[in-house]
C-alpha cells in the first residue's frame, strides 16, 4: 500500500542498502543523481507520479548526507499541482529540503496562501504545516491574518484549527508584530475555553509564547489556565483517548504550568488556593511505578509542578517539602530522575533561600560527581557550585580538586574555573586560596585559563601577609620534576617579586632561586621566557650585597637574548641588561609592583555574565536576575588622580611598569626602549590588561616626578598610600551609597524559621548567623565577613537586648582583615515569654565610608519552643484543666493568609509548634503541642488548637492554653503575627540604613495593648 506505484524508489533504497562500502554507495548515488537530473531536464515527459518518485529519491539521498543542489524547483512545483498526492509530496519534501531563508520559498507564497484561504481542508492542512515548519518573516507578513482567521473560525474543524494555532506561533516567533495585542488577549481567553484537547494543546503552546513576551496583556487568561489545570489534574471530563498511561494529557498539564510560570504572582485568593491544592496533590500524589512511560509522564508533570511551586510559593511554605522530594530523587536508581533532581535543586537555589535545606544532601550530591553518566556529573558540578558558601567551601572545593584528576577532559576546564571562583569567593583565609589555585595549576594546568593565575598574583600583590607564604609555596612547587608551564609562570613571577622575603630559608638564597628557575628556561614558550627575564632582573636587584657570579650568569642570559627573534623578549633583554649596570637606579626601576586597584574579579564577572546568559529565556530564572548576586563586589571606579600625564614621570620609571605588563600590554607604545606615550586613564576593564594598567594611573601621585620616584623606592611604604588614595576615590564616588544588597526584613523573617543563613549583606561585608537552641539557652555565632581585599576598620557591634533576654556578645575585633571572616559567639538566655526583639547595632568603616546598621536578631519566641508529641490521654486532661482566661485564651483571627491545612502544618512545624495529627476528630482543625523554655517558667507545656473554616480560608479561630498567662498571651500574638496576611515586602530597593534602623527598633511594649486589632498589629509590624 505504502509505495503504490513507486517500485523504483524501493529498488533504489535496497540498492543503496546493498552497497558493500561507502565508495560503492557513492557511485550508486551519483548514478541516480545523474539520472534524476536528466529526467528533470525534459520535464514534459514526466508523469506526476514519476516526478513524485524522483523528488522522494532526492530527499532520501539528502537524508543520507549527500549534497543535493538541484531539483528544488521540481519539489516546489509539486506544491501547485492540483491533486492531493502531488501536493502532499511537494509540501513535505520542500519543508525538509529548504530552510526558511531559501529564496525559492518566496515564489510559492501565493500558492500557499491560496491553499490556506481555499475551501479544501486537506490543502489547508498541508499549507499550514509547511508554513508552521519553515515559514520565515515574509510568510509572517503576508499570511498571519489568514492564519488567525482560521484559528478563530467557528466553521473550521479541529484538525485545521490546531495546525493554524501552531502555524501562527511560528509566524509570531518570526515577527511578533503579527499578533496585535489589543484584540488578542480576549481572543486568547476565548480560545482557552476550547473543549477539543488537540486544539487546546496547540493553543496552549501559542499562549506560552505570547505570555512569555508580555504577561500583563494576558492577565485575563490566568484563571482559565488554573481551571484547565484543575480539570486535568482532577481528571474531570477527559476523553479516554487523551489520557496517556492513565494520566490526563501530561503534555497539556506541563504546558499549562509553563504558562502559569510567566505570571509573576497569582493574586486572586480563590484561584491561588485552587492552584495550590492541585499542586499539593501532584507533589504528594506522584508515586514511582513500574511502567517506564507512566513514570516518565507523571514525573514530567511533577517536575513542572515543582517549578511552578518554586515560582509562586513566595511564602516558602511548601519549599521544605519540595527539597525533601528532590533529596529523595537524587538518590534513586532511575538515572533520569536523578538528573532532574539535581537540575531542579540547582534551579531552586537561584530563586529561593533554601541553601540550608539543600546542604543536608551535600554528601549525596558529591557522590553524584562520580556518577557513571556525564550528564549527571555535569548537573552535580553545577549544583555544588551553586550551593557553595563560606560554611562548606572548603569541603566542596577539596572535592572538586580531587575530582579534577579523574574528570573527563571535556569537563576539566569548567571544573577548574568553578573551583577557582569558589576558592576566591568563599576563601576562609587567603593562604588557603593560594593553596587551591596552585594545586589547580599543578593538577590541571592545561585547563587553567590565564585569568586564574592573574588573579592569584593580584591577591598576593595586594596582601603583604600573604607574600612570604606564596613565595614559599611557589618555591616548593619548583622542586617538582615535571611542572606545567603555567606553574612556571606564576612561580617565577611570585619569586621574582618576593623571594627576598625567604632569603634566610634553606634553598632560597638568590642564587638557588635563580638556578632552579633557570632550569625551566630551555623548555618554555616565548611569553614565559619574557616573564623569566623579568624575574631574573628582579632577583638581581634584590641580591644584597651583589653576587658577581650570579650577576655574570644573568647578564650572560640577557646578552644571549639581545638578538632574539621575538621583539618583546629582545627588548626586555636589552633594557634589563643596561638597567642592571646602572647600580642604584635598578632598585628604583624594579621596585616591587604596587597594589592593584580593587576591582571585580574577571573570573567572577565571567561567571556572572554566563549566569545571566543562561537565565535569559527562563521564566523561573527571571526572578534570580533581580536578586543581587553575592559575588565579590569591589570598587571599580575611575581613579581620581588619573589624569596625570604619565610621561611626566620620567623615562626611567616607566619601563619598570612595562616590564611586568608588556607581554599582554598593547597600551604602551615603545620607541627604542623609551616610553613616549601612555594612555593616562585606562578604562576600567575586567581583564588583566586593565588590572596591570590600573596601577599606572592610580599610583602616580599628583606630585612632581621626584616624589613619585621616592614613593617607588620605598616599595612597601608606598603601598599604604596607594590604598588610601583608592579609599578616597571610593568616598568621592559613592558616599552614602552603601546599601544592603539583600532584603533585610526578608532575611530576618527567614532566619526566624531556620537556624542559619545570611542576616545582612552590603557591597563590603556580609553578616551570617548560625544558632543552636537548647531549652532557654541560645548559642549564636555571628560570622562577620569582609568581602574586600582591604581591611574593614572601626568595627563595632553592640546588642540592644529587650528586658526578657540576657545577651552576651564576645569581643568583636576592631579590624576585619581582607577577605577574612570573623566569628563572634553570642550567648542568649531567655528570662520569660515576650515578643520583643533584640537588636544588633553594627557599624564599620571602609576607607572613609562609615556604615552603620541596626539589625533585628532572630532570637525570637519560637526559638525557645520545642515541639512535643503527646497522646490523646495526655492532651485532653491538660486541655480541660486549663480553663478560661487568662490561662486559656481564644480569639477569632481574620485576614489570615489563605493556606491549606498541609501548608499551615508546615508553617507550624517550622515555628516549632509540633502538630499532632488525628487528635482532633474534625479534619479541618489542627492541634499542636509544644514546650516553652525560660528561666522563670522552666519548661512549660503549651496547647494550641486552630479551627479553620474550609469555606473561608481567611479566617480561623485559635485557642491557646498554658500554665502562664503572659506566655499564653504572647504565644497567641506571636502565632497571629505569622498567620495574618502581611503583604510581602517589595523586594525592590532596600531601605537606606537610616530608614531600616528606624523601622527595626524593638517594638515598645506599650504598643502591645493595641495589638488585639489585626489592622493595628499589621501597621506595627510594618
Amino acid at each position, binding site marked *: *500500500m*505504502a*509505495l*503504490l506505484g513507486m517500485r523504483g524508489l524501493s529498488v533504489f*533504497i*535496497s540498492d543503496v542498502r546493498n552497497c558493500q562500502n561507502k565508495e560503492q554507495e557513492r557511485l550508486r548515488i551519483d548514478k541516480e543523481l545523474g539520472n534524476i537530473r536528466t529526467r528533470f531536464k525534459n520535464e514534459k515527459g514526466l508523469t*506526476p*507520479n514519476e516526478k513524485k518518485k524522483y523528488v522522494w529519491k532526492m*530527499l532520501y539521498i539528502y*537524508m*543520507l*548526507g549527500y*549534497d543535493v543542489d538541484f531539483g528544488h524547483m521540481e519539489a516546489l512545483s509539486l506544491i501547485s499541482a492540483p*491533486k*492531493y*498526492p502531488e501536493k*502532499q509530496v511537494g509540501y513535505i519534501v520542500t519543508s*525538509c529540503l529548504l*530552510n526558511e531563508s531559501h529564496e525559492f520559498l518566496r515564489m510559492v507564497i501565493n500558492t500557499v496562501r491560496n491553499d490556506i484561504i481555499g475551501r479544501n481542508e*486537506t490543502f489547508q492542512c498541508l499549507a499550514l*504545516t509547511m508554513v508552521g*515548519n519553515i515559514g520565515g518573516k515574509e510568510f509572517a507578513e503576508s499570511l498571519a491574518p489568514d492564519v488567525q482567521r482560521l484559528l478563530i473560525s467557528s466553521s473550521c474543524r479541529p*484538525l485545521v484549527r*490546531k*495546525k493554524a494555532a*501552531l*502555524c501562527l506561533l*511560528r509566524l509570531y*516567533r518570526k515577527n511578533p508584530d503579527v499578533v496585535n495585542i489589543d484584540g488578542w488577549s480576549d481572543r486568547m481567553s476565548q480560545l482557552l475555553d476550547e473543549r477539543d484537547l*488537540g486544539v487546546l*494543546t*496547540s493553543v496552549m*503552546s501559542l499562549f506560552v509564547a505570547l505570555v512569555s513576551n508580555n504577561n500583563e496583556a494576558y492577565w485575563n487568561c490566568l484563571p482559565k489556565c488554573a481551571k484547565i489545570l484543575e480539570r486535568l489534574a482532577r481528571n474531570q471530563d477527559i476523553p479516554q483517548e*487523551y489520557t*496517556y498511561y492513565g494520566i490526563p*494529557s*501530561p*503534555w497539556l498539564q*506541563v*504546558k499549562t504550568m*509553563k504558562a502559569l510560570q510567566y505570571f509573576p504572582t497569582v493574586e486572586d485568593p480563590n484561584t491561588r488556593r485552587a492552584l495550590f491544592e492541585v499542586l499539593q496533590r501532584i507533589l504528594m500524589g506522584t508515586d514511582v511505578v513500574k511502567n517506564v*512511560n507512566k513514570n*516518565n*509522564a507523571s*514525573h*514530567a508533570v511533577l*517536575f*513542572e509542578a515543582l517549578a511552578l511551586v518554586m515560582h509562586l510559593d513566595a511564602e516558602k511554605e511548601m519549599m521544605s517539602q519540595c527539597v525533601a522530594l528532590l533529596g529523595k530523587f537524587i538518590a534513586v536508581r532511575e*538515572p*533520569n530522575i*536523578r*538528573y*532532574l533532581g539535581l537540575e531542579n535543586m540547582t534551579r531552586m537555589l537561584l530563586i529561593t533561600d533554601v541553601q540550608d535545606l539543600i546542604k543536608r544532601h551535600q554528601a549525596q550530591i558529591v557522590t553524584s560527581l562520580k556518577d*557513571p*553518566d556525564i*550528564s*549527571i556529573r555535569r548537573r552535580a558540578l553545577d549544583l555544588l557550585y551553586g550551593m557553595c558558601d563560606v560554611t562548606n567551601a572548603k569541603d566542596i572545593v577539596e572535592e572538586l580538586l580531587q575530582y579534577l584528576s579523574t574528570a573527563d577532559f571535556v569537563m576539566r576546564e569548567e571544573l577548574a574555573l568553578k573551583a577557582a571562583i569558589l576558592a576566591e569567593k568563599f576563601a576562609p583565609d587567603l593562604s588557603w586560596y593560594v593553596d587551591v589555585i596552585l594545586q589547580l595549576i599543578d593538577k590541571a594546568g592545561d585547563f587553567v585559563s590565564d585569568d586564574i593565575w592573574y588573579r592569584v598574583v593580584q591577591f598576593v600583590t595586594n596582601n603583604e601577609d600573604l607574600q612570604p607564604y606564596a613565595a614559599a609555596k611557589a618555591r616548593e612547587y619548583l622542586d617538582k620534576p615535571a611542572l606545567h608551564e603555567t606553574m612556571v609562570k606564576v612561580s617565577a613571577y611570585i619569586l621574582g617579586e618576593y623571594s627576598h622575603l625567604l632569603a634566610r630559608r634553606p634553598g632560597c638564597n638568590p642564587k638557588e632561586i635563580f638556578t632552579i628557575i633557570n632550569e625551566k628556561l630551555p623548555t618554555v614558550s616565548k611569553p614565559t621566557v619574557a616573564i623569566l627575564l623579568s624575574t631574573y632582573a628582579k632577583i638581581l636587584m634584590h641580591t644584597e650585597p651583589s653576587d658577581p657570579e650570579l650577576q655574570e650568569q644573568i647578564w650572560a642570559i640577557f646578552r644571549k637574548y639581545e638578538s632574539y627573534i621575538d621583539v618583546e623578549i629582545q627588548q626586555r633583554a636589552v633594557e634589563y641588561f643596561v638597567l642592571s649596570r646602572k647600580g642604584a637606579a635598578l632598585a628604583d626601576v624594579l621596585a616591587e609592583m604596587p597594589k592593584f586597584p580593587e576591582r571585580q574579579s574577571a573570573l567572577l564577572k565571567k561567571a556572572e555574565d554566563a549566569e545571566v546568559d543562561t537565565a535569559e*529565556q*527562563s521564566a*523561573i530564572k527571571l526572578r534570580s536576575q533581580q536578586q543581587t548576586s553575592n559575588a565579590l563586589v569591589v570598587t571599580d571606579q575611575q581613579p581620581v588622580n588619573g589624569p596625570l600625564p604619565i610621561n611626566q614621570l620620567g623615562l626611567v620609571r616607566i619601563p619598570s611598569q612595562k616590564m611586568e605588563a608588556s607581554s599582554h600590554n598593547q597600551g604602551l607604545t615603545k620607541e627604542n626602549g623609551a616610553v613616549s606615550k601612555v594612555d593616562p586613564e585606562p578604562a576600567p576593564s575586567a581583564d588583566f590588561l586593565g588590572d596591570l594598567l590600573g596601577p599606572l594611573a592610580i599610583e602616580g601621585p599628583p606630585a612632581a616626578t621626584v616624589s613619585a620616584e621616592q614613593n617607588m623606592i620605598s616599595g612597601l611604604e608606598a603601598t599604604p598610600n596607594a590604598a588610601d588614595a583608592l579609599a578616597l576615590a571610593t568616598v568621592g564616588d559613592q558616599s552614602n551609597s552603601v546599601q544592603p544588597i539583600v532584603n533585610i526584613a526578608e532575611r530576618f523573617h527567614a532566619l526566624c524559621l531556620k537556624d542559619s543563613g545570611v542576616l545582612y549583606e552590603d557591597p563590603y561585608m556580609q553578616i551570617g548567623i548560625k544558632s543552636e537552641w537548647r531549652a532557654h539557652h541560645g548559642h549564636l555565632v555571628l560570622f562577620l565577613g569582609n568581602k574586600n581585599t582591604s581591611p574593614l576598620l572601626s568595627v563595632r557591634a553592640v546588642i540592644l537586648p529587650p528586658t526578657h533576654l540576657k545577651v552576651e556578645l564576645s569581643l568583636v575585633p576592631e579590624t576585619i582583615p581582607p577577605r577574612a571572616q570573623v566569628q563572634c559567639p553570642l550567648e542568649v538566655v531567655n528570662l520569660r515569654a515576650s515578643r520583643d526583639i533584640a537588636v544588633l547595632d553594627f557599624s564599620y568603616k571602609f576607607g572613609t565610608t562609615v556604615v552603620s546598621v541596626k539589625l533585628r536578631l532572630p532570637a525570637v519566641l519560637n526559638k525557645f519552643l520545642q515541639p512535643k508529641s503527646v497522646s490523646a490521654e495526655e492532651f485532653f486532661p491538660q486541655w480541660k484543666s486549663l480553663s478560661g482566661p487568662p490561662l486559656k485564651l481564644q480569639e477569632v483571627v481574620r485576614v489570615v493568609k489563605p493556606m491549606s491545612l498541609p501548608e499551615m502544618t508546615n508553617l507550624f512545624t517550622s515555628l516549632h509548634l509540633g502538630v499532632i495529627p488525628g487528635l482532633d476528630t474534625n479534619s479541618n482543625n489542627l492541634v499542636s503541642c509544644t514546650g516553652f523554655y525560660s528561666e522563670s517558667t522552666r519548661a512549660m507545656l503549651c496547647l494550641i488548637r486552630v479551627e479553620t473554616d474550609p469555606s473561608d480560608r481567611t479566617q480561623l479561630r485559635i485557642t491557646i492554653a498554658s500554665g502562664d498567662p503572659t506566655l499564653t498571651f504572647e504565644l497567641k500574638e506571636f502565632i497571629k503575627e505569622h498567620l495574618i496576611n502581611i503583604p510581602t515586602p517589595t523586594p525592590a530597593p532596600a531601605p537606606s540604613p537610616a530608614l531600616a534602623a528606624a523601622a527595626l527598633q524593638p517594638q515598645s511594649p506599650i504598643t502591645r495593648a493595641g495589638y488585639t486589632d489585626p489592622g493595628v498589629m499589621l501597621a506595627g509590624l510594618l
Partner: protein
Amino acid sequence: MIHFVILLSRQGKVRLTKWYSPYSQKERTKVIRELSGLILTRGPKLCNFVEWKGYKVVYRRYASLYFCMCIDADDNELEILEIIHHFVEILDRYFGSVCELDLIFNFHKAYYILDEILIAGEFQEPSKKTVARLIAAQDSLVETAQEQASSISNMIGQATK
C-alpha cells in the same frame, strides 16, 4: 521548543531528520556528526538526556534506532521523552510492530506521521486515535487519486489502441 528531530541507526545512519530551527545544509551535517558521536557512544542505563552547546538532546533507543530531539535547556525533558514514545507508538500502530526496515522503505510515511504530531517544534496532538484517523484519511485520498489516475490511463490506453 524542539529544534530538530533526528532518527539515527546504531551505525550512525540517518533515518529521518526534521529541522524546526533554521540550519544550513553544512550545519545540519555537522550537528548530525557531533550528536552521533555523543549519543551512540553512551552506554545503557544512563539517563536519556545529553547536554550539548547550551541545548539538551533528549534521546531514546528502540532496538537499533535512536530517536533524538533537541530542546532548550529549560524545557521539560521528560515531556519530550514521552513525545518520542508517543511517536513510536503511533508508528507501531500504523506499521504493525514497526522495525527499522519499515522506516527505511517508508521513510516518507514517517514524515507524514511526524507532521501530524509536531508543527513548529511544538506538540500538536496527544491523541493517538486522532493521528491514526488523519493518516488513514490521507492514505485513502492518495489511493483514490491513484486509482482514478490508473483508470483514466487505462481508458486512454483503451481508446488509443
